[in-house]
């Protein structure tokens, strides 16, 4: 069991992150709703870090196998998410939107 102080510190981080999360997307244009959702989707693939932690500490073969499944799934979320977001945004480029936007 972790000390109470550490739990409260994590809770503080959580509450502050909620406000930051609201703030950063509050002015997004509807054109970018889909890429933004896809990008946010990629970011939660960072559960990969958690999956690596449990896989690294696995005691039995069963827990290791389950943890490795989690690693595979999390990697698919993380890597696939960023790649598909990039492809989506690529479509918006080179459309003569302001100087330097065209030429391809």
């Amino acid at each position, binding site marked *: 069991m972790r000390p109470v102080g550490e739990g409260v510190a994590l809770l503080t981080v959580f509450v502050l992150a909620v406000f930051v999360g609201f703030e950063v997307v509050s002015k997004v244009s*509807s054109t970018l709703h889909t*890429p933004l959702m896809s990008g946010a989707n990629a970011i939660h693939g960072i559960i990969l870090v*958690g999956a690596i932690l449990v896989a690294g500490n696995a005691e039995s073969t069963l827990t*290791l196998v*389950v943890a490795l499944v989690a690693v595979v799934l999390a990697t698919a979320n993380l890597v696939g998410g960023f790649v598909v977001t990039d492809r989506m945004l690529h479509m*918006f480029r080179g459309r003569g939107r302001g100087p330097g936007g065209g030429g391809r």
Partner: protein
Amino acid sequence: MTPTWAQLGYLVAAICFVLALKGLSSPRTARTGNLIGAAGAALAVVVVLAADRPRNLLAILGAIVLGSVLAVPVARRVQMTAMPQLVAVFNGVGGGAAALVALLELAETSGAGGWLELLAVAFSVLVGAVSFSGSLLTFAKLQELMTTRPVLFAGGPYVFGGALLVAAALAVGVVLDGGLWLGVVLAVVGLVVGLLLVLPVGGADVPVVISLLNAFTGLTVAAGGYVLGNSLLLVAGTLVGASGTLLTRMMATAMGRSVQNILFGAFRTPAGAVAATAGEARPVRSAGADDVAILLGYARKVVIVPGYGLAVAQAQHTIHELADVLEQRGVDVSYAIHPVAGRMPGHMNVLLAEADVPYEQLKEMDSANPELRTADVALVVGANDVVNPAARTSPGSPIYGMPILDVDSAQAVVFLKRSMRPGFAGIDNELLHDPKTTLLFGDAKDSLTKLVASLKA
């Protein structure tokens, strides 16, 4: 204990994620933002491997390679029209991974943690499972592996409510008892809840549900971060949970609906559905492709309103071809894009961009409505609810108050439709019976191909 340098590395990664979301909110910085996010993720993975020195390093690296090999080719090659369901799958597997991580942590500690940690475990297992099964079901709906209509059965709301109660009881059990098996049962119930949540949602509303499940997965990851005492997971998951919740609400507002209405609206029979069936018998004027081609060919100004039907028929290239043919004849062509046109908010912009439609021709709501007032023909391709004047004129209508494109202000209106079936909102569109409206029935792509052919002839 995590070394200080590793914690600082996580901090940098967390900053990258904040900057990524910030960047993704503006067209100019979106791509850079996404790359910053990816860089932050890569940094975090390197840090955890270096700091934790996992015993099964080779197996873990192998699993990472396998996950990348599975995901990257699909992400690179997927049709842009099929992209929403791919995002759903990625979201689902992420939620599944988070649920598994929480279950494993439960197995390792076997209930030795404090009640707050066990609560976070229960939350992570339940919501992760909901996100997993719900996302895979949205995939099945969008991929049309099953019906895209709402699936309802007798007592549906009670079954759903009952499943939620069982899940809550099991979650309490996990907190009190801390046993692994209760956690596993909780996960199974979570899978059922996810299916029951998504089944009654209709195809056109599924994107909002994907966004909601995306926020769920974010919160799951945040809870996982609390369990593991990892600040990066906590921050990243919370960011996605908070921004995803806000985004879900913005998407629903753009469709003139509330999130509750989207999730549970199908449980109640909308009053408007009755009017819709009564309206089917009324006369409409339909015409062949040649007649419509003449109407378009001799117009001075045509405004195209692409919608869901265009996305389903994958007709974005054909509509561009039609626009080109019209422009060669000297017709002024532009596109009026409703914020929720396509299968997701903003999806139509992506689709038309893929078909190389010049950006300047795309008009958003505010500039599109004045254009429509001076247009000779408004060509509505597979859209219905977003052009229904009932949103302006009949306060009793379910879509009343939703911002719409005023196609009725154009001189003439042409609808390309598959059938007289009403749009997703299930209400009749008066405009279809208006004397200045012409209907061309058929699949959007076929109809557009015929129009191009007869214009070239």
